[in-house]
């Protein structure tokens, strides 16, 4: 019987939309009465169905409240307003009848109050299913910046520097719980009588008592439930919800085994780095700039690929592109016009082993976002290299095994973002040809390494 009631209760979200639709239809008709001949009759007919479906909605809603562990405080508004809506519809229905006392009220009273009551009932209903701030959530960021309100954050905020001082509970456990558990275990929606929104509630437990067993931590309900196989009915979070990751299960288990401490920091507890690591946010040093660009024109990409050029985004989801002429050794300066239309997208260009010459520098200056340029094994001498100072993002320049002339290297100090230049020439000692400023000394890699012979090289044991 219980399960049938639950089953019927679950139809509530479906059934409610019937009276909602009927009422809106009635309203439409009401405001366009003049257009129809027998509008009063139709209106009455519609309202009759409003009443019928309304009664079922309220019944199923009540069942759902009883069977699914909602708190009365959180549903009462929705419940009373639902009944009010039903009463108003009934009033309207009677009003349309022949002679009733209700005729003394203005007609617009019914239509307008019914509409208002419908809107509020619906809104409160939505709040129950989706959470209090569901509707305003997307605006929260806007409003908090507008009004300077800081939201209480329950997201992970650990990084390499701050993690040791964070308390184990607020630093890691709270973000895991709020992410995966609190949506069903909170003061509004309290499945199994359990609330997990703060430490006291968590320790207090649910309708079957505490979920943490301080004497035998590994027998804690929380511990057992997260470790059960997903198929088990008692496994938490339920199969249909977002599951805990292995790292999260490991960490919660560790925390329970410690006796679920609240205030101790990760450093005091001596938590091992391996357990914490998955929760650290790693600040990634960006090699490529963060530029918002539309997807590159796929026709251009197809043409380039058809010509054996290697063109690809820097990672699968990125719109920044890198290109290489590795498979096109005959690539020449004039073919650079193939790249028209994706100048902004290109962040890396590898022209190694190609047939380009010194006028390539002027052409490359037209690519504003280039971070990396490779001209290894080409004929370039460096004449005109100064043009590359226009490439504000250029960090790496490769000129290995070229005809590079040392006198042009002094121009490199004018390049705004340049970090590394590789300039090794296996057949000559370029470093002897030129004098370098201190700045250039730090960015130019001449190579020219050697491993002098040692007596031990010759010993045969």
């Amino acid at each position: 019987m219980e399960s049938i009631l639950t089953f019927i209760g679950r139809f509530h979200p479906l059934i409610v939309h019937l009276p909602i639709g009927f009422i809106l239809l009635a309203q439409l008709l009401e405001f366009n009465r003049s257009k129809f001949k027998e509008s009063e009759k139709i209106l009455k007919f519609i309202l009759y169905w409003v009443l019928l479906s309304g009664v079922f909605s309220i019944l199923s809603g009540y069942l759902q409240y009883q069977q699914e562990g909602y708190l009365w405080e959180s549903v009462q508004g929705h419940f009373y307003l639902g009944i009010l809506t039903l009463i108003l519809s009934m009033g309207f229905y009677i009003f349309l009848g022949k002679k009733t006392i209700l005729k003394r009220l203005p007609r617009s009273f019914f239509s307008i109050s019914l509409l208002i009551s419908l809107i509020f009932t619906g809104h409160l209903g939505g709040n129950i299913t989706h959470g209090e701030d569901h509707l305003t959530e997307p605006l929260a960021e806007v409003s908090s910046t507008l009004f300077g309100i800081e939201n209480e954050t329950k997201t992970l905020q650990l990084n390499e520097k701050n993690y040791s001082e964070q308390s184990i509970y607020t630093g890691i456990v709270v973000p895991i719980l709020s992410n995966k558990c609190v949506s069903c275990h909170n003061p509004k929606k309290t499945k199994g009588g359990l609330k997990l929104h703060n430490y006291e509630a968590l320790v207090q437990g649910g309708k079957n008592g505490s979920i943490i067993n301080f004497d035998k931590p590994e027998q804690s309900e929380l511990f057992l439930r997260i470790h059960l196989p997903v198929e088990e009915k008692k496994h938490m979070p339920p199969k249909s919800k977002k599951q805990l990751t292995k790292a999260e299960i490991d960490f919660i288990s560790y925390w329970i085994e410690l006796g679920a401490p609240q205030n101790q920091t990760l450093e005091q507890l001596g938590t091992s780095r391996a357990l914490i690591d998955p929760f650290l946010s790693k600040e990634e040093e960006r090699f490529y700039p963060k530029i918002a660009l539309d997807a590159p024109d796929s026709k251009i990409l197809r043409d380039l690929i058809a010509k054996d050029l290697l063109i690809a985004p820097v990672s699968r989801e990125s719109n920044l592109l890198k290109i290489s002429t590795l498979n096109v050794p005959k690539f020449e300066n004039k073919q650079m016009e193939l790249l028209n239309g994706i100048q902004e997208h290109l962040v890396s260009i590898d022209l190694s082993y190609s047939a380009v010459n010194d006028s390539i520098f002027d052409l490359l200056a037209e690519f504003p976002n280039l971070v990396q340029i490779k001209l290894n094994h080409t004929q370039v001498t460096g004449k005109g290299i100064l043009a590359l100072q226009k490439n504000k993002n250029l960090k790496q320049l490769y000129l290995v095994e070229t005809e590079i002339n040392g006198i042009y290297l002094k121009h490199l100090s004018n390049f705004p973002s340049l970090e590394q230049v590789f300039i090794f020439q296996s057949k000559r000692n370029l470093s002897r040809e030129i004098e370098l400023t201190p700045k250039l000394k730090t960015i130019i890699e001449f190579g020219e390494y050697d491993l002098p012979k040692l007596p031990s090289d010759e010993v045969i044991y």
Partner: protein
Amino acid sequence: MDNLKKLIAENKELEAQLNSRRHFLKDCTLGLGGIALGSLLNSCNFDQQKAYDYTSARALNPMAPLPSPLSPKVKSVIYLHMVGAPSQLELFDYKPELAKLHNKPCPESLIEGKEFAFIEGVPNMLGPQATFTQAGESRNWVSNHLPHFKKVVDEVSFLKAVHTDQFNHGPAQLLMFTGSARFGRPSLGSWITYGLGSENNNLPGFVVLTSGGTPDAGKSLWGNGFLPSIYQGVHCRSKGDPVLYLKDPEGVSRDLKRKVIQSINEINYKEYQKFKDPEVLTRISQYEMAYRMQVSVPEVMDINDEPDYIKEMYGVQPEKEAFANNCLLARKMVEKGVRFVQLYDWGWDSHGASESEALSKGFLNKCRDMDRPVAALLLDLKQRGLLEETLVVWGGEFGRTPMWENRAGIQNSLIGRDHQGEAFTMWMAGGGVKKGYVHGATDEIGFRGIDGRVSVHDIQATILHLLGFDHEQFTYDFQGRPFRLTDVEGRVIHEILT
């Protein structure tokens, strides 16, 4: 029942994949000639797609390069594997306490319940057979057996507490390179070329170079497992013809060869149309690859055009099969866009059962022959800017015991150590890896990892991470379930990453 459903689903998916391949073959190319000439799928117009679908290139060319799913730190890997398991206690893991215990019986508590490959009963301890100094600015310990390596010690991140659960060579090598100690899984290089393809049209994406002998686990170490066979490693010989039978026979011109291959491909293609087996496509593209390799492989495999001082730096031994030659080749290949170069150097199994296996003899020769080329490789990659986007990994399949091996209960006449999976040293260097760093530590005698222990799967996860993969997402469906290189384990070793 569930399993059956999964198998059916997998089969359907496979069929759908084949269908899209079929569609490309039929509608998007110039037909047979198109196939023989390589990927011409771009004559196909698909204007409804906004962004370019890079995966579509795979329909015809299974080696077409694909971008990494996540931001990669490196684009190539050179993996230096010392077959037989070099002794960490004579190379990088300095244990002065062990010297004090030299030739004293091993406390029984240490070996109780432990399994060894050869040690029986109670062996004696064996002190370090090397002197150590702190090298470089990082002041990390390096043994005197590696004088040249001391110059590059600041480039590498040591992992001092790697562990494996295998203590025999074959299974341990399989675990290291396929993620499983049993046969049948794809190798690391196969996974990588499957995921990223190959950049150079004329060279294989996954090259294997061996010296000293073939590894114990054989060619499975670079096998494709259940992946399409195009992703297996290409084993190049560093002496004589790099790839056997690649040269045209006498009297056969290149033109004739081309015609032969074209005809074979046409026949193969008819076969493919009939049975839709993707392995036929693999075969077609391998014929094409072989044809192109005839020119480019001898070129890239020729180390003679390198300047003499570079050859001297590596300690190249012309016309011989040598680890030094392979290191130089590895650099040349990475420079030409080869994705994964795997080096196997055989002969590190220092049991002390024979002279070549003794820490006092054969091991020292191995050290001498490995030291200079490895140091030279790191320096050469560095001076060409290649170390920025290449990952170099060095290691063995396990480590060696702090005990003197006593085969059948009798101490070996020569100095040697038994297999040990519990703790050994590996290192990584290159893009995205910290320089001059040490992660993990072993106990006073180097028997167990006590801090920063990392598993074989962790190493694999880290390599994939640096190439821009999430090792948990990178899967291949086979026999009803998704498989991954790291199986159900593995954690990226963030500690050594920049």
